[in-house]
C-alpha cells in the first residue's frame, strides 16, 4: 500500500484512567471516502480528532501524508493546514463575516495575497451555494448555511483530506439535505474524506468503506455494500437493525 495517506498503527488513547481508543489500526488510501459509525461514546469523534491532533494519542503511531504526528508543533501545524475539519457545532468565527471566515486562514497561514484568497473563497462559497451571503455574519445565517460555510472555510485551505465530525447532527431535518448535498459534491470531486455520521443514506451513496466502532475499538471495517448487506459481527447487526 504505497498511496495510503493516513496510516494509524496500534493507537491507544486514554482520558485519565478511561481508555477511549483501544489498539486502532487504520489505513486510508488517497481519494477514498470512509464513513465511521457507531453508538455515542464509542470513540468515533476522538478518533478523527486524533488525526489532526486536536486530541493527543498516548501510544502507537499516526502518520498523515508521510509525516508522523509527534510533539513537534511545526509538523502539527503543517498537517492541520492540509487536513480540513468540519465540526458538529459549525464553530464559525462569529466576529468575522462569512467571507473573512473563509479568507482568514489562507491569508495568515498560507500567506496567500488577500485578493487571491477572496477569489478562492468566493469560488468555494459558490460551490456550496452561499456566495450571496458572503458579507453577512454567521449569526445571521441558518444552521445549514453556517455548516456549508464551515465546509467552504475548510476547503479554502485546499486540504488533501477532509474530516467531518457529525456535520449534520446539530441541524434541522430540512437542512440536513443541503449539507449532505455539498458533501456528496465534494466526494464526487475526488476528495479524501473521513466522515463520522449517522446518515446511513449518505454512507450508502458515497462511502467506499464503512467502519463500525464500539467501546473504543474498530469492530468491523468493510466495503460499503458488504457492510450493509452482510455484516459479520453480532454487534454490527444489532446496531444496523436499530438504525435502519
Amino acid at each position, binding site marked *: 500500500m504505497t498511496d495510503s495517506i493516513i496510516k494509524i498503527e496500534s493507537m491507544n488513547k486514554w482520558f485519565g484512567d478511561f481508555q477511549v481508543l483501544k489498539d486502532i489500526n487504520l489505513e486510508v488510501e488517497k481519494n477514498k471516502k470512509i464513513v465511521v459509525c457507531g453508538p455515542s461514546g464509542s470513540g468515533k469523534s476522538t478518533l478523527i480528532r486524533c488525526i*489532526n491532533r486536536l486530541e493527543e494519542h498516548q501510544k502507537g503511531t499516526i502518520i498523515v501524508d508521510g509525516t508522523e504526528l509527534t510533539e513537534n508543533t511545526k509538523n502539527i501545524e503543517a498537517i*492541520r493546514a492540509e487536513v480540513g*475539519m468540519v465540526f458538529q457545532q459549525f*464553530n464559525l468565527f*462569529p*466576529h468575522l463575516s462569512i467571507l473573512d471566515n473563509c479568507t482568514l*486562514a489562507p491569508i*495568515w*497561514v498560507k500567506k496567500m495575497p488577500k485578493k487571491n484568497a477572496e477569489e478562492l473563497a468566493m469560488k468555494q462559497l459558490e460551490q456550496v451555494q452561499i456566495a450571496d451571503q458572503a458579507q453577512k455574519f454567521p449569526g445571521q445565517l441558518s444552521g445549514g448555511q453556517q455548516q456549508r460555510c464551515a465546509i467552504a472555510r475548510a476547503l479554502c*485551505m485546499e486540504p488533501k483530506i477532509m474530516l467531518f465530525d457529525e456535520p449534520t447532527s446539530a441541524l434541522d431535518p430540512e437542512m440536513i439535505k443541503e449539507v449532505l448535498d455539498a458533501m456528496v459534491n465534494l466526494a464526487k470531486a475526488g476528495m479524501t474524506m473521513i466522515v463520522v455520521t449517522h446518515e446511513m443514506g449518505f454512507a450508502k451513496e458515497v462511502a467506499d468503506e464503512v467502519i463500525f466502532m464500539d467501546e473504543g475499538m474498530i469492530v468491523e471495517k468493510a466495503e460499503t455494500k458488504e457492510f450493509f448487506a452482510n455484516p459479520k459481527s453480532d454487534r454490527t447487526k444489532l446496531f444496523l437493525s436499530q438504525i435502519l
Partner: protein
Amino acid sequence: MNKLNFLRPNIENLNTYLYSGIFLISIAILDVALNSFFNTNITSFLPNFISFLLPLVLGTIGLHLIRIEFSGIKNLDLLNKNINTNTFNAILTLLIIFAIIKSIPPFLSWFIIDATISGDTKEACTGTGACWTYIKIWLNRFIYGMYPNELQWRINISFIALIALAFVGLLPSEKIKKFLTLYYVIIYPIIAFVLIYYLISGGAFGLEWVETGAWGGLSLTFIVSFFCLIFCFPVGMFLALGRRSDLPTVRYISVGFIEFWRGVPLITVLFMSSVMFPMFLPEDFFMDKLVRVIIAISLFEAAYVAEVIRGGLQALPRGQYDAAKSLGMGYWKMHIFVILPQALKLVIPGIANTFLALVKDTPLIFVVGLLEIVGMLNLAKTNPKWLGYAMEGYVFAAIIFWIICYAMSKYSYNLEIKYKTDR
C-alpha cells in the same frame, strides 16, 4: 352601589375620572411645591398632622382615579403601566416626586442663588451658599498644579495635540485604516510620551526644565491616567494569556504576579515605589518619581485587567480553539485573529469598570507627594487665606471626575454596540 362605582374608575366615564384625578394630584404637588419653594402652607387651617399628610392622601386618591386600563391615551397607559400599577407603587411614586421637589430649593440656593462668584478674596463670600470665588481663584492651580504660570502654554499645546492625534482613526482614508491598530497601540503612546517628555518636562530645545514635582492638578490626573491605561492593558493581556498557558513556568509566574499585586493595597504599592524601590537600584541610576508611580499603578491595575480578560477567554467555547487549530493556526495567530477579538469584546464592561476605578484611584498618588486635582484641593483648603471651603472644592472635584468617568463609560458602551456582530 353608586358610591362603590365611583371608587372603581372605569373607561365609560374616562374624562370625569381623569380630570378629577389630575385635579387632586395637582393640588397635592402644588401644596408640596409651595411649601418647599415659598415656605407657605396652604393647608395651615388644618391640624398639623393632617396638613402634613394631606398631599400624600390627595395624590394617592388622584392616582387611583386615573388608574384606568386600556384608556386609549398613550401617555396615560404608559404612566399607569410604569409608575402607577397599584396603590403601593402610587405612594412610592408620590414620595419620590415630593422628595425631589423638597430637595430642589436648598440645592439651588446653595449652588446658585445664594452662591458667590465675584471678588478675589474670601471676604467676597458673604452669602450662605457656595463660595465659587474660591474655585475661580484657585482654578489655575487645580488644573496645572504648581507648574509655572508663564509656561502653562506647553501643557495646553501638548494636550491639544494629543487630543487631535487621537482622532486620526476617524480619517476616511483606506490607506491609513490598515495601520490603525499599530498606530493606537504603539505609535500614539510613543508620540504622547515624547510630547510630554520634551514639551511638558522640557530641558531640551531651549525649553526650561520643570521637575515633575511641580506638575499637578487636573493635567497630572490626565497624564497619570492616560499612561496607566495604556500600559496596564497589554500587560494585563499577556498575564491573562500567561495564566492559561500550557507552559508551567509561564503559568506560575503569571499566577504569582497577579496574586501578588491583587493582594496588596494600592497605597502601599505607591509608598514602596517611592521609598523602597530606589534602595534596590544602583546609586547612579535615577528614575523619576512620576515614572515610578505610573509603573506601579500600571502593574497594579494590570493584575485586575488580567483577571477580567481571563474571564473573557474562559467564556469562549472550546470549538473556537478547535476551529482555529484545525485551520493550521499557531498559538499567536489563533489568539490574535480568533480568540482575543472575541474575548476582549466580551469583557468591554469589565475593562471599563477597571479603568474607571483606575482613574478614580489616581488621587492616591498624594502619598508620594504628587498632587493631582484632589491633592491640590487638599492643599488649597489648608491655605490660611481660604480656610473653610473644603465643600466647594470637593463638589468641584466630584463634578470633574463624574464628567471624565461618564465620558469613558459612554465610550465603552458605544464600543460594545459597535462590535456587536453575533446577534
